[in-house]
């Protein structure tokens, strides 16, 4: 949408939302949030961008192919259960690396959540850019 007021605001809002989405992702294990909410939020951020600047600009901005995002996300999520298997434990048994201040204990579970985040983001992007791409 060619609205100066919107575009100016959107720059700020998008940035804010993306940062916020990562925050939500990382602290999700301990506070409300997590991969879904983070991914959706990031998707909404890009939706805002696309609505403000057009979907081509958004694609340029993202740089990453959303389909690849899906692939990486799925591999991270499904793969997060593999280390346990290689150690002879049940699939998806939690593997913990250590504590990070502000996030808490970090391990395979976080990898899983990151995968979730990427998949949700990728899918949201595919849907939105796909639909809006038809408008351009």
């Amino acid at each position, binding site marked *: 949408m060619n609205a100066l007021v919107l575009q100016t605001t959107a720059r700020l809002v998008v940035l804010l939302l993306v940062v916020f989405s990562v925050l939500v992702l990382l602290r999700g294990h301990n506070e409300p949030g997590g991969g879904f909410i983070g991914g959706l939020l990031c998707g909404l951020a890009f939706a805002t961008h696309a609505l403000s600047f057009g979907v081509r600009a958004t694609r340029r901005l993202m740089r990453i192919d959303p*389909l*690849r995002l*899906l*692939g*990486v*996300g*799925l*591999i991270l999520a*499904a*793969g997060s*259960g593999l280390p*346990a*298997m290689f150690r*002879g*434990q*049940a*699939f*998806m*048994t*939690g593997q913990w690396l250590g504590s990070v201040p502000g996030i808490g204990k970090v391990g395979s579970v976080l990898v899983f959540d990151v995968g979730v985040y990427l998949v949700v983001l990728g899918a949201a992007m595919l849907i939105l850019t796909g639909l809006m791409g038809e408008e351009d």
Partner: protein
Amino acid sequence: MIALPVLPILIPLLAAAAGLLGWRSVLWQRVVGVAGCVGLFAAAVALIVAVDRHGMLVLQVGAWPAPFGITLAADRFGSIMVGLAAFMGLMVCVFSLAEATRRDVHRGFFPLLLVLLGGVGGAFLTGDLFNLYVWFEVLLIASFVLISLGGGRAQLEGAVKYVALNLVGSMLFLTATGVLYGTAHTLNLADLHLAMHEVRQQNPAMATALAAVFAIAFALKAAVFPLFFWLPASYHVPSAGVCAVFAALLTKVGVYALVRVFTLVFPGEEIVITAVLIAAGITMLTGVLGAVTQYEMKRILAWHSVSQVGYIVAGVGLLCVPDPAVQALGLAATVVFLIHHGTIKSTLFLVAGLIDRREGTTQLRPIGGLALASPGLAVLFLLPALSLAGLPPSSGFWAKLAVLSALAEGGRWWVLAAALAAGLLTIMSMMKIWNEAFWKERPSDSSHTPRRLPAALVTPVVLLVLGTTALGVWPQPLLGYAQRAATQLLDPAAYVEAVGVLPPPPETMEAIDVTAESSRAAPP
């Protein structure tokens, strides 16, 4: 060994993800597709062998004890179904190397196929009701996309109807699962088996009502009368490979769930399961009658899928007979018929694909003369067609015999009569195709130049025909397996023991009472 039950889920999903990573390269997609299917097949074979030898394989995902985590529990029934999915997946994958266009591949054909297989695998292996719902959705959405992949009007039309009706079923399933959780407060199937005893004591009508809703939801997925509309409206629209994989798996998952739930969670719900049996009988007839009016090969096959679901479900419906011997016969018949139909119907759809490739259409009127023009194709059609019609010595005959024996043993004569009548009409339908496409002379106004059939298209069909014919000539391995699987299904106590549901530790026993409406945190 510990990893075995998760591999049929994990391998295809990881392969699908890998496919998405390199989605621009058709070659990469094909390589990943075949690799994933081969891997899945290997895992499935290993699983079948292991389960048949050592009994149920149980994996507590995340090492959380049952019923708290999600349990993957592979019994004979589940593993053979995984085997069916894997085998058909592999065949269709190879077939699609030649059939799927570049356009299809770019649109994610192979990852979608793999996801479908992964979802099916999950559904067959999970020991958790909600997880079953999730895998249902996985395979459902993959099938949504596959059905609409062609993007033509027919595909889109079929897809809309398919999506709409299946979503109603999904919502029903979800709601029923939620209500069941609200009632029994557990989701693990083994744990539910125990909890439902208590539920039945407190409110037997509740158990029956839930059983009915689950039956309806699964019957819709299985395309049982009068909930089958989605199937004839949509099964025939995608490419033959997709049709084949659908025919092999989609309705089967519904039947699988029906079996699982009615052996484990709602055993002895006689009213509901009797209704299922009656519906099964009607389904057999409705399906074949529907096929009579059709003059397009895939549509005919689709209608027969409905009819055959009736046969398959009839075995489940025999759970309404209190005699465990009859129940075992019925379930064994269901297993045999599932495998038979899963392979044969898919083979026929693939043959339709061959005809489509050769003649440019699967409409019966504009083609003809294939018996002379392509004798090999004629053999590839005739053998599975006879099997579908239940003529011996074919897998279809043994499957039908198993169903009929079970029905006779259970004394359900009307259903038996329906099965016989439907059998005759099935012969008629198959011979209609044979007459029109193979025996009839090619219409003189046909201007189509037949195309050559590439090896990738033909090889899987040949393998399938050989395999199913072997199954017909030497049925005992399958029959015996089915018998053992049925016995296992009818022993829920063993299932519960294998899953290892633990009584909750003492300190958590002071359970929060979530059923009561209270607002403890906020003062009044």
